[in-house]
């Protein structure tokens, strides 16, 4: 086995004052799965983008199979067989699935025109390799697919290029549990075939399940490389964030008494085909998790509570109000005091082109204004306070928020809403793509907020954090809350059983599904 199949020597990249990569040397072998670890902003994506020809390094060389590569853009990297699945999806929304899979190298006929028929065959084959050819229609446009299927298409698009080096930059973050399993099988097959797989994930259990080798990055530097499983998690975390983490999850206090009037109470909530009579209640001081397999109505529920869906029936009581607010703006009103942290921070959470300052202020600006005139001094004070409380790492609040690392961007989204002093927080997967260290800070923050009397409804795709953080977890299945688990009942098994709507004593109907979901929870 060639250990130096892919080799980077002395690679550096600066963005203004920030060294995203400094003098990084690193190599990976053929036929192996190599995990890249590091906290947010460690430079992982920058490294991968360098390999993919998207970022041009200030210094250093990249070698593949001993040959030095000169790359002027992604096209060259792809020609070399380096295929990257980026953190931001790179599908074309208005093209068909087939066209997306064969996007840049479609089969062509004698006239040089795209051969639709062969293109469809190729695409079908690629999906078949993942095992998803039956659930995705090749003619459907990607914009009409759910997020999880889009990610499958993205992976198929990489597979079809027969990569020599395959890079996955948090490419599994939006997959359903069963699809994650399929993708892992695929990656193992590719490894057998000699592909060099580089794999970035903030989920340690995925790393444990897949990686042969791990490399840790910190502050743009390559810290260490070691065989997977050779170091305990605590050690890896210490390498990543430079300090040990004693405990990821804060301790859970006594839950509020049942007599406390819920701040959010929902009954018989229905909407379209996705919500079929949801019942739930969240009390002040309580963190309630929302779990289940992907696509069981969790997202719709959150959107319905925020007043973003149109045809909603049933009772929703928030504070003293008996109807949901009319969108996020209504939610800010005194009568509701609620905040929705959206799932997609790059498009919905942040105005990426604006500064950190402008993003942080935007939600609470009306609170520090009189007659529509903003109090600048109050605004500055507020923002300084937010940066401090949430420990947002930015060189300056005037820089564009797009230049912050993912975790810090997520903190900005949280901070801008906390500035409105909400009493109900609706969180949609707020830790996706956030590193352990930051996660820990964020969990603490949620706990502190709850202690101050906030009611928190927390939707997550990560079973582990539901158990670790929440007082109670509601499991959804087919548009309904099927179970409310707390205390001793709050275990992976229980979540799983309910997520698949299996009675406690029933035998699992489908082995592989249980297996897949079980794996997702096994941290």
């Amino acid at each position, binding site marked *: 086995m060639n250990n130096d199949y892919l080799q980077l020597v002395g690679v550096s990249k600066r963005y203004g004052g920030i060294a995203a990569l400094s003098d990084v040397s690193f190599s990976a072998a053929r036929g192996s799965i190599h995990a890249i670890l590091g906290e947010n902003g460690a430079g992982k994506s920058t490294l991968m983008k360098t390999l993919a020809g998207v970022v041009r390094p200030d210094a250093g060389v990249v070698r593949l199979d001993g040959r030095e590569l000169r790359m002027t853009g992604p096209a060259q990297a792809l020609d070399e067989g380096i295929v990257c699945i980026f953190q931001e999806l790179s599908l074309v929304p208005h093209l068909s699935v087939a066209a997306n899979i064969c996007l840049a190298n479609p089969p062509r006929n004698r006239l040089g025109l795209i051969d639709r028929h062969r293109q469809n065959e190729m695409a079908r084959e690629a999906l078949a390799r993942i095992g998803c050819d039956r659930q995705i229609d090749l003619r459907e446009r990607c914009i009409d697919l759910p997020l999880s299927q889009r990610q499958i298409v993205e992976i198929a698009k990489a597979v079809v290029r027969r990569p020599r080096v395959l890079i996955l930059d948090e490419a599994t973050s939006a997959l359903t549990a069963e699809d994650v399993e399929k993708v892992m099988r695929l990656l193992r097959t590719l490894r057998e075939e000699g592909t060099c797989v580089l794999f970035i994930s903030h989920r340690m259990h995925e790393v444990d399940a897949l990686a042969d080798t791990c490399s840790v990055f910190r502050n743009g530097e390559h810290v260490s490389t070691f065989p997977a499983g050779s170091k305990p998690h605590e050690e890896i975390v210490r390498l990543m964030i430079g300090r040990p983490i004693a405990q990821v999850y804060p301790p859970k206090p006594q839950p509020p008494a049942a007599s406390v009037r819920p701040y959010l109470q929902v009954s018989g909530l229905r909407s379209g085909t996705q919500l079929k009579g949801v019942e739930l209640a969240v009390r002040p001081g309580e963190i309630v998790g929302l779990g289940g397999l992907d696509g069981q109505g969790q997202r719709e529920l959150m959107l319905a509570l925020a007043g973003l869906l149109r045809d909603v029936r049933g009772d929703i009581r928030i504070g003293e109000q008996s109807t949901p607010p009319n969108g996020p703006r209504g939610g800010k009103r005194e009568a509701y005091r609620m905040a929705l942290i959206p799932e997609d921070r790059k498009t919905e959470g942040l105005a990426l082109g604006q500064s950190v300052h402008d993003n942080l202020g*935007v939600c609470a600006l009306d609170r520090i204004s009189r007659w529509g005139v903003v109090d600048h001094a109050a605004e500055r004070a507020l923002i300084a306070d937010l940066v401090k409380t949430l420990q947002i790492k930015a060189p300056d609040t005037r820089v564009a928020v797009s230049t912050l690392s993912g975790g810090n961007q997520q903190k900005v989204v949280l901070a801008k809403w906390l500035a409105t002093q909400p009493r109900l927080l609706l969180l949609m997967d707020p830790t996706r793509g956030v590193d352990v260290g930051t996660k820990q800070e964020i969990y603490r923050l949620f706990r502190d907020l709850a202690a101050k009397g906030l009611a928190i409804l927390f939707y997550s795709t990560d079973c582990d954090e539901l158990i670790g953080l929440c007082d109670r977890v509601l499991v959804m299945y087919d548009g309904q809350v099927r179970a409310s688990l707390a205390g001793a009942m709050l275990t992976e098994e229980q979540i799983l059983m309910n997520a698949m709507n299996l009675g406690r004593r029933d035998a699992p109907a489908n082995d592989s599904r249980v297996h897949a979901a079980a794996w997702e929870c096994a941290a």
Partner: protein
Amino acid sequence: MSTLAPSTNLRSHFKTPTGAVLLALAALLLLGGTLNSQFFSPTYLLLQLQSGAFLGVIAAGATLVILLGHIDLSVPWTLTVAATVGTAVTRAGGGAWAELGPLAGIAAGALIGLLNGVGVAYLRIPSLIWTLAVNTILLGAVAFYAGNTVISSEPSPVMAALGAGRSFGVLPNAVLVWLAVSAFVVWGLRRTLMGRYIYAVGTREVAAHMSGIDTRRVILGAFVASGVCSAIAGLLLAGYAGQSYQRMGDPFLLPGIAAVVVGGTSILGGRGRYGGTVAGVLLITLMSSMLSLMHVPEAVKQICYGLVVVVMVGLYSRRQGG
């Protein structure tokens, strides 16, 4: 080191769009002045300010709309409608009520802005096409109305005083109006919620909506402001020309947009400063005046005009692209 500081400071200043336009403006003046010393005369320069004022007021409204990433192509006939309504009501009111005229004109502008805003913000029709359609309707409405009714085209005393008069015998009142509008826009963009929201919505509307901003109202507001600006310009122009007349707005559409983008505001929205717009207005006004006085053929004038826009905007975008 300390002696270097001011010059680097100065240089960095000229790297901003506003600075670059001012530089171009100075160069233009110098060039023109060497060809004909009269270009330096205060009378001439004040006249440029005077005619720049009409374009300036229009460009102020256009800046707000462009900062949102939208565009208002109804400017020409909004301006004409406002002037027509203004003069017609002046006559109908008569005497003491004559000044209802300009008020009615501004109300008409606001109403048209409202129509634009409703189409763009609430019906979600692309502004380029909606405001174009509105412009066509306004043309039709004015032609129909003016062709069927004997109406006065005489401006009210206030319109005449603001459009054509001068304060202290020198400073054109139109320039004062432009200054007032500018002050209001600068203050609005910097200090008010509306201004801050305009930048947020212009950067990314969904994100703004998810942050609890009523983005539709912001868009509506900007279009109303743009309509009012066009109306003010129309009323001033009617005062200046001593009459309202059809097609009086046509010469302002493209220069209005050009002034904003030459001033460094991104046509995609979210980025730009009002100071740049003011500089852009001055540059464009002065350039077209000088070219026509030097009797450059229309063809060459057009070519110069296009080149200036390409070069100026190209300069900024290269810099931003890094």
